[in-house]
């Protein structure tokens, strides 16, 4: 991911000459207006709505009311009682996004590394396969994992049929799984669990991780590795001291991009996470479209999520550049 700002838009060399100028200028104006209308307006609407006032038992109207932001940090019943409910949801948003993007990148890294060592033809085939898998929507992927993790059609059935469940019970480990919320008295269960949520989320972004790491890894000069090997470095030492430092920026950039992408995951969280472990994205949807019709509070939550994402990205970028060139 490009963490640096792009160069200023390239101006054609003959920009200040002849009648082309006004045409070019008009196109630029039109482009700016289109961008403003398509990106900025909805965004400004969300901010404006976040200050709206909710009417109990009805809808809401525009106002300048900071209650929604206060509610985010201390709850609606403040000062009678304080609630960290929404901070907790924000925490889960960040937790899932961080863990899942790190898992995706860590597991995609060796895969991509070996992928770049394959023949051109094999690489192309793999990349086409991965690109086409991106066309699967989140809903489709979640449905697939839902079936794979279901008691009667998926992994728990395999546990049951192969006697693994019984074995776990005999060994006394089954109760530990129950303590972790990964078993009912009858069998192991993976829904709902943090495990299933993180698994699905990393699966969701895994192809992106490969595609984002591929350019950096394929540009890696093989002679560097060969030189290190000739000088007697073991393969792991080569990976640790040559490969990883030279693609460090790509690794961090990929984690950051996937992190932002995963902050808004909705379907996987609603299906696989217990309500106690659900994220702000779900809460936003429920505020806007749910029974309370509280678009202002939904917008306020969205603004807080956005600000958090920006802060974390800035910190991430600082960290990746602070280390200096590897």
């Amino acid at each position, binding site marked *: 991911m490009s963490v640096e700002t792009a160069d200023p838009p390239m101006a054609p060399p003959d920009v200040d000459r002849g009648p082309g100028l006004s045409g070019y200028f008009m196109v630029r104006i039109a482009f700016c207006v289109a961008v403003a209308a398509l990106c900025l307006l909805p965004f400004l609407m969300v901010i404006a709505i976040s200050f709206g006032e*909710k*009417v*109990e*038992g*009805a*809808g809401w109207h525009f106002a300048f009311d900071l209650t929604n932001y206060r509610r985010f940090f201390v*709850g*609606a*019943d403040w000062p009678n009682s304080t*609630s*960290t*409910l929404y901070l*907790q*949801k924000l925490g889960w948003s960040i937790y899932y996004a961080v863990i899942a993007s790190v898992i995706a990148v860590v597991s995609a890294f060796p895969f991509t590394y070996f992928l770049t060592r394959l023949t051109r033809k094999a690489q192309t085939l793999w990349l086409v396969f991965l690109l086409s898998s991106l066309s699967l929507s989140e809903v489709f992927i979640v449905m697939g994992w*839902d079936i794979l993790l*279901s*008691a*009667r*059609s998926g992994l728990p059935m395999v546990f049951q049929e192969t006697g693994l469940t019984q074995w776990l019970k005999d060994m006394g480990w089954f109760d530990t799984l*129950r303590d972790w*919320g990964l*078993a*009912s*008295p*009858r069998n192991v*269960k993976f*829904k*709902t669990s943090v495990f299933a949520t993180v698994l699905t989320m990393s699966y969701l972004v895994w192809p992106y991780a490969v595609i984002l790491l591929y350019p950096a890894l394929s540009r890696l000069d093989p002679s560097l590795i060969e030189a290190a090997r000739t000088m007697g470095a073991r393969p792991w030492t080569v990976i640790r001291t040559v490969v990883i430092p030279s693609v460090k920026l790509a690794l961090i950039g990929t984690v950051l991009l996937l992190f932002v992408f995963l902050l808004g995951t909705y379907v996987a969280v*609603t*299906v696989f996470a*217990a*309500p*106690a472990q*659900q994220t702000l994205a779900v*809460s936003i949807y429920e505020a*806007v*479209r*749910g*029974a*309370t*019709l*509280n678009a202002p509070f939904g917008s306020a939550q969205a603004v807080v999520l956005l600000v958090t994402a920006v802060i974390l990205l800035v910190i991430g970028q600082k960290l990746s550049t602070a280390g200096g060139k590897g």
Partner: protein
Amino acid sequence: MAMKSTLSRRTLLKSGAGAATLAAAGSLGAPLIAQERSLKIGSYGGYFENSLKEHVYPKFTEATGIAVESVTQPNSSDWLVTMQQAANAGNVPADLSLYSRDTMIKASRIGDILKPMDAAAIPNLKYFDDYYAFEDKAGTIGVGAMAWFSAMVINPDEVKTPESWAEFWDTSRFEASLGISKLFNSHFLDVIAATFFEGQETFKTKDGIMALIEKAAEIKPNVALWWSAESQMEQGMKNLDIVGGMYYLDVAGLMAADGFPIKPLFPKEGNPGDYGSWCLAGLSTKGGEAAEFVNFSCDPTTQKLMSLMIGTAPLVSQEAAGLTDAEFAAVSGTPVIHPAYEAYLDMETFIQESWDKMLAGA
């Protein structure tokens, strides 16, 4: 624009051999082409909407010559947002929509989303209790369509039939085994109020509501699935992820009829009963057609038809609808737990956040 095309179609039909075409199309039910009068009706998608399309709308078209275009609603509160935005944009997707009572009251309070219907044009209202014709300052805003229950359900192969909702709190029997709706207004709180407290009275104070929610917190170890979409509960019961919980009586009955291990029950405290109302969109120009449809819907024969074909409970008595005891038992039961609608509206933020806090353990 819609008006104009209707007018020209009308002229065309009057001048030509329209009547024959009308009758033919009417018996088929669906096509809008060559229809003189039409009505767009919203209802909850899936099996529910399909049953209306297949069994109820054709009968109406046959009786009145008004063609029905079915519109899919995801549910009632989500639909209210859609209708509100559509009304602002000046073009509504449906003339009549189906709203639960709380959503209807909310729409009435927001204003301009609904418009009153002409009660005089709905003579069949005489079969209904006044409660089902909801009036606000503007007039009759909603007329009852059908009733539905959320019922206790169990997997009869796995669990012994409970006699009371209280048994669901027994962790030695139901640990990590139940499916309950995750929405604060799914009427599970009403079940708790009826089982352990003083029913609707308990909803009158914040302390009462907190007591209900604390009782709900005690069932958390037994709930394996807090569902937000109907299909999650359906899959959960089919897959044995859960062996009991609370679910819609009509859908549970249909699943049982298809051979899935699910049995809806009326425990001694009863089940929460709710109902849907037909409401006319504020921008609709089809007031007359809508009244005719609502009148048709209020007819005890139609109420019976819906009970038999959709599995909803009739809003008229069993005798008026002419349902046998077995037919009636399949769609209804006693006692009925009446939801505390006022509390859900007047203290919605408090109840919603306290409920979510309970779920989140925050």
